């Protein structure tokens, strides 16, 4: 470690480390999580020999791990440090401090740990200067002692961890200390757990999981290891696994306060306020001084609008620790989770004022400023956080992302600020300008509300960058996100053609912006996702996506929560398929409400959320039914729309049809596939019967029928890029220029990065005498950076000329000649344009 020097407050400590407890049992039952056995054997041993301190330690540790705190306090009577730890666990802080003092004054084996515990108590009540001075002394212990026990290494690591908050270069030493503890006693789970908790603090989930997994291999029942793993899983979006792990932790230790606080936090994520409240009540009954539980309780009061209770909890925490920033940071995080980013930034800003060295608070402030589109302020906050804690992966990723912003161009248009990558701006700008304006006008008309300010839309050509923008890490599978007035989404170039429709994603996210605005950011996720998925349909008039058999099957088999608990389907989906189905179901709920109660009811519901009312209340007042009745009514409606009993028939028809198709037995395949298409025209997993039918018709030379099948498919599937391209070709052959243009139009909106569809569409629009659209397509061709740029610019100039835009034509022909001054046709056009004016 970094220093060798005066040992500060307790120079003698190092010399006292040699004293070691003698043990009568090896402690393997405790180490391996066989707690009842450990308690039983240790109790018997103490019964035989009351001075058997090793057995007593095992007994106390086991009782603490399983949450039998009062028994632990009693058993720890002759072991003051352990007694202090037991007392602290239930919030008897003054008694705990006395016990630690007693242990520190005694020249016993626990002296080092007791000194640490005393320093930590000082830290936790805001006496940081004194606490840090005491932590600092542990470095000297490390440097001066050749014979440290595994527990000593862990304690030193814990102390240096605190020092790392002001000297981040010490964090490698924390890892070093835990590593040494592990090397000295590989069967002890504790240093693995501490290492895992350290990685969790740095948002490094893979590393955290790796070491916590090692801990759980040693002791599969360790409550803290289970909780740590639960947090890592939750961080990775695996809420179902996280919940399972935290429940396992609570089975081992029902009084484990951090697990109850975490469970409450998870409940807050799903707007399950009753569970959150009950978990926190129980946690605080066990330990009324738990800062973590109090902070989460404050967050609950905040999001529920319980002002007085919120202030009371803040006051309780201030009494425990007047400089504790964790409460405000926790409230900010949960407010952000509920999409209340402006309030989150405000709270995190207060937290940084309370404790300027709270790097987590600076991070939460920066992330929320980033979400609010306050880019430079965000950069400042995040850099401040990263200076203090350069091991935070989340913040590093965000700063790395911010460093790429120089590659983007900002385009201001009425109502929007567009952030487009410099390589794509020329191609995408005409499309996104049009799409954003149309979506804005349609959605504001529909909801009777408009975004408060200018909406910023960021398009990322690299999915990893979008993912970092959204969750701080690469690898998230989502397509777009709305932070209110800031939208971020994958550019169409980020994904393979035919796998993504950025237009519907843009409408979806803008729908969130409106819903968040109407509800003052209080709309629950299930409802806003449902409305936004419903809004996607407005991108094409008359478009009505089919109900897919995969969704219906999942619904019918009870894999999805009912309407009244649909939020759980978004927060704790078992699999990505469950999440996808939750989106579909939420949109169907929206459709059902609109159909049965009118769209005004949807707006009224959003107003209900704005007033802070819970979903069940809103169901009663707006939909005029109890939640269970709502569940039943929707169920009847859905089953009238699509019959789950048809799924089996569809599967049979489709599989037999496909088999016959593959055998080229088209006469047999056709009726099977036609019937399958009448039941479910599109399937998410297996494709569409219409796709096979189109191929059969083409093989049979019936292009009209093939076109009809492809029209049926492309009118239901918003990602059918290849089918639209194929359809355009067939319709052209059939002489249907307008139909071909419509198909290519759909194709270029899905994936605008291929030259040929734009070139053909420009020609078709020329034939159809739609000069403005010819200009758009010629602009797209220039934006695709063709090798023959001069020719593309010349064609664009001609398009402008045909559209009557002489100044545009002149501008573009000059650009063409700038590239190729000898370009004869362009020179002639320039002269004609000049002569005409």
């Amino acid at each position, binding site marked *: 470690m970094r220093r060798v020097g005066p040992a500060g407050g307790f120079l003698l400590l190092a010399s006292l480390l040699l004293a070691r407890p003698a043990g009568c049992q090896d402690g393997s039952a405790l180490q391996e999580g066989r707690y009842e056995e450990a308690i039983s054997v240790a109790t018997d041993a103490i019964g035989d020999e009351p001075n058997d301190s090793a057995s007593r330690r095992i007994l106390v540790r086991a009782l603490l791990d399983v949450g039998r705190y009062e028994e632990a306090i009693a058993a720890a009577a002759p072991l003051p440090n352990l007694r202090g730890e037991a007392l602290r666990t239930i919030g008897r802080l003054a008694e705990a401090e006395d016990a630690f003092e007693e242990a520190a004054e005694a020249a016993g084996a626990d002296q080092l740990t007791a000194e640490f515990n005393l320093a930590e108590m000082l830290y936790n009540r805001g006496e940081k200067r004194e606490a840090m001075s005491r932590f600092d002394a542990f470095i000297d212990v490390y440097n001066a002692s050749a014979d440290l026990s595994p527990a000593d290494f862990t304690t030193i690591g814990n102390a240096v961890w605190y020092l790392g908050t002001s000297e981040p270069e010490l964090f490698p030493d924390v890892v070093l200390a835990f590593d040494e503890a592990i090397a000295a006693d590989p069967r002890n789970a504790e240093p693995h757990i501490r290492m895992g908790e350290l990685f969790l603090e740095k948002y490094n989930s893979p590393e955290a999981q790796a070491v916590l997994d090692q801990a759980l291999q040693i002791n599969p029942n360790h409550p803290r290891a289970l909780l740590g793993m639960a947090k890592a899983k939750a961080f990775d979006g695996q809420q179902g696994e996280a919940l399972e792990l935290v429940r396992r932790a609570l089975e081992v230790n029902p009084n484990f306060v951090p697990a109850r606080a975490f469970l409450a936090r998870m409940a807050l994520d799903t707007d399950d306020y009753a569970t959150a409240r009950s978990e926190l009540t129980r946690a605080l009954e066990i330990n009324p001084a738990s800062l973590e539980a109090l902070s989460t309780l404050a967050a609950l009061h905040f999001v529920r609008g319980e002002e007085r209770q919120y202030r009371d909890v803040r006051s309780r925490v201030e009494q425990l620790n007047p400089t504790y920033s964790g409460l405000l940071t926790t409230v900010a995080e949960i407010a952000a989770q509920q999409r209340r980013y402006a309030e989150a930034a405000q709270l995190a800003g207060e937290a940084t004022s309370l404790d300027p060295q709270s790097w987590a608070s600076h991070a939460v402030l920066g992330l929320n400023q980033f979400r609010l589109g306050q880019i430079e302020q965000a950069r400042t906050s995040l850099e401040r956080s990263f200076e203090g804690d350069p091991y935070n992966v989340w913040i590093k990723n965000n700063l790395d992302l911010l460093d790429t912003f120089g590659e983007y161009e900002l385009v201001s248009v009425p109502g929007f600020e567009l952030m487009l990558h410099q390589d794509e701006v020329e191609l995408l700008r005409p499309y996104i300008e049009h799409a954003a304006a149309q979506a804005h006008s349609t959605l504001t008309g529909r909801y009777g509300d408009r975004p408060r300010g200018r909406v910023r839309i960021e398009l990322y050509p690299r999915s990893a960058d979008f993912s970092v923008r959204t969750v701080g890490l690469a690898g998230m599978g989502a397509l777009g996100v709305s932070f209110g007035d800031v939208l971020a989404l994958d550019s169409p170039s980020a994904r393979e053609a035919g796998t993504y429709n950025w237009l519907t994603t843009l409408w979806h996210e803008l729908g969130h912006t409106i819903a968040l605005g109407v509800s003052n950011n209080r709309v629950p996720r299930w409802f806003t996702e449902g409305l936004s998925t419903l809004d996607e349909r407005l991108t094409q008039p008359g478009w009505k996506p089919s109900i897919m058999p995969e969704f219906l099957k999942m619904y019918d088999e009870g894999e999805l929560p009912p309407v009244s608990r649909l939020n759980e389907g978004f927060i704790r989906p078992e699999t990505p398929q469950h999440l996808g189905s939750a989106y579909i179901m939420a949109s169907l709920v929206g459709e059902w409400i609109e159909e049965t109660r009118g769209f005004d009811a949807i707006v009224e519901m959003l107003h209900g959320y704005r007033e802070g009312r819970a979903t069940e209340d809103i169901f009663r007042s707006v939909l005029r039914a109890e939640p269970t009745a709502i569940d039943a009514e929707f169920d009847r409606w859905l089953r009238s729309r699509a019959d789950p009993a048809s799924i089996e028939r569809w599967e049979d028809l489709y599989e037999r049809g496909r088999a016959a198709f593959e055998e080229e037995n088209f006469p047999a395949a056709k009726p099977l596939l036609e019937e399958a298409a009448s039941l479910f025209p599109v399937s998410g997993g297996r494709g569409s019967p219409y796709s096979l039918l189109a191929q059969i018709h083409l093989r049979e030379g019936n292009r009209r029928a093939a076109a009809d099948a492809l029209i049926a498919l492309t009118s239901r599937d918003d990602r059918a890029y290849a089918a639209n391209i194929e359809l355009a070709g067939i319709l052209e052959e059939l002489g249907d220029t307008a139909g071909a243009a419509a198909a290519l139009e759909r194709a270029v909106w899905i994936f605008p990065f291929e030259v040929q569809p734009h070139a053909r569409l420009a020609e078709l629009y020329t034939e159809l005498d739609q000069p403005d659209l010819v200009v758009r397509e010629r602009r797209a061709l220039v934006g695709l950076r063709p090798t023959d740029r001069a020719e593309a610019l010349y064609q664009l100039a001609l398009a402008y000329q045909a559209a009557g835009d002489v100044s545009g034509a002149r501008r573009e022909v000059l650009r063409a000649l700038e590239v190729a001054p000898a370009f*004869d046709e362009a020179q002639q056009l320039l002269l004609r344009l000049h002569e005409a004016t």
Partner: protein
Amino acid sequence: MRKLFIAVALSAIQVSGAAAQARVLIISGLGGEARYVNDFHKWGTAMVDAATVRLGLPRENVIYLAEDPARDAQRINGEARIQEIQEAFREIASKAGPDERVLVLLIGHGAADSRGSRINLPGPDLTAEEFGKLVDSLGGRPVVVVNTASASGDFHESLEAPNLASITATRSGMERNETVFGRYFVAAFVEEGADVDKNGGVTVGEAFDYANAETKRSYESTNQLQMEHSRIEGNVELARSFTIGAPAVAALPADASPAVRTLYEERQRLEESVAALRARSATMEPAAYQAELERLLLELARTNRSIQDGAQ
């Protein structure tokens, strides 16, 4: 100084009939699988047709050695064995004038290992070192070598001379997958789109740019990681001005009147002014740059129209 510059520039105006000839040697190696055999044949014959039909090179100026001469006896001069290749180089060295430009195009599968880089031929492979010596045998003639084979990148090391430019389909011998660069390099002379300066001809440099861009687009459109990265080395200026057929810009007729000659000189001056203006665009106010650009381009267009009117 200014007068001297103009005098030098004017001397560069080409007069029809005075342009140096070009020679093209195409060597297409073993294909192995049928699809490669067909592709290599297609590219080789297309290049022969482009050079002779489209670009007007005399047939005797083009030598095409391929895997199977019987496949197209009209276009293929012989088998692509080392002996025939050596003979072809000897023929060019003996027949080509001292200033004649030579393009050597290699098509096939390449390899690179501890024994060096090579291209697979019927019989023994041709190594980069052997190939370098053959190119040296052409003396100081302006030569551009284009190796479109896989793993061709290390060929540059054997090709160093002041009047030599070399192009390879890959960055190094480590890029060993099959390449598509050759298809697009040939397409640059066969299809529209490579003449980016619109002067009526495609230089080898333009063909390189075109093939480079289309190769990238080809990988992007199929969502594949690009496995080949072409390189141009040596006398790049030579490649940028190297045309296979007639001079790129319509040449001044030998019997041009003084008035026409003046127009040609004026056109050249204006083209150079546009180039000079573009070079200093970054230091100018955008509006001033645009105004001056438009003025020069209009003047250029009018001059060109006068030349065309005079020709009619």
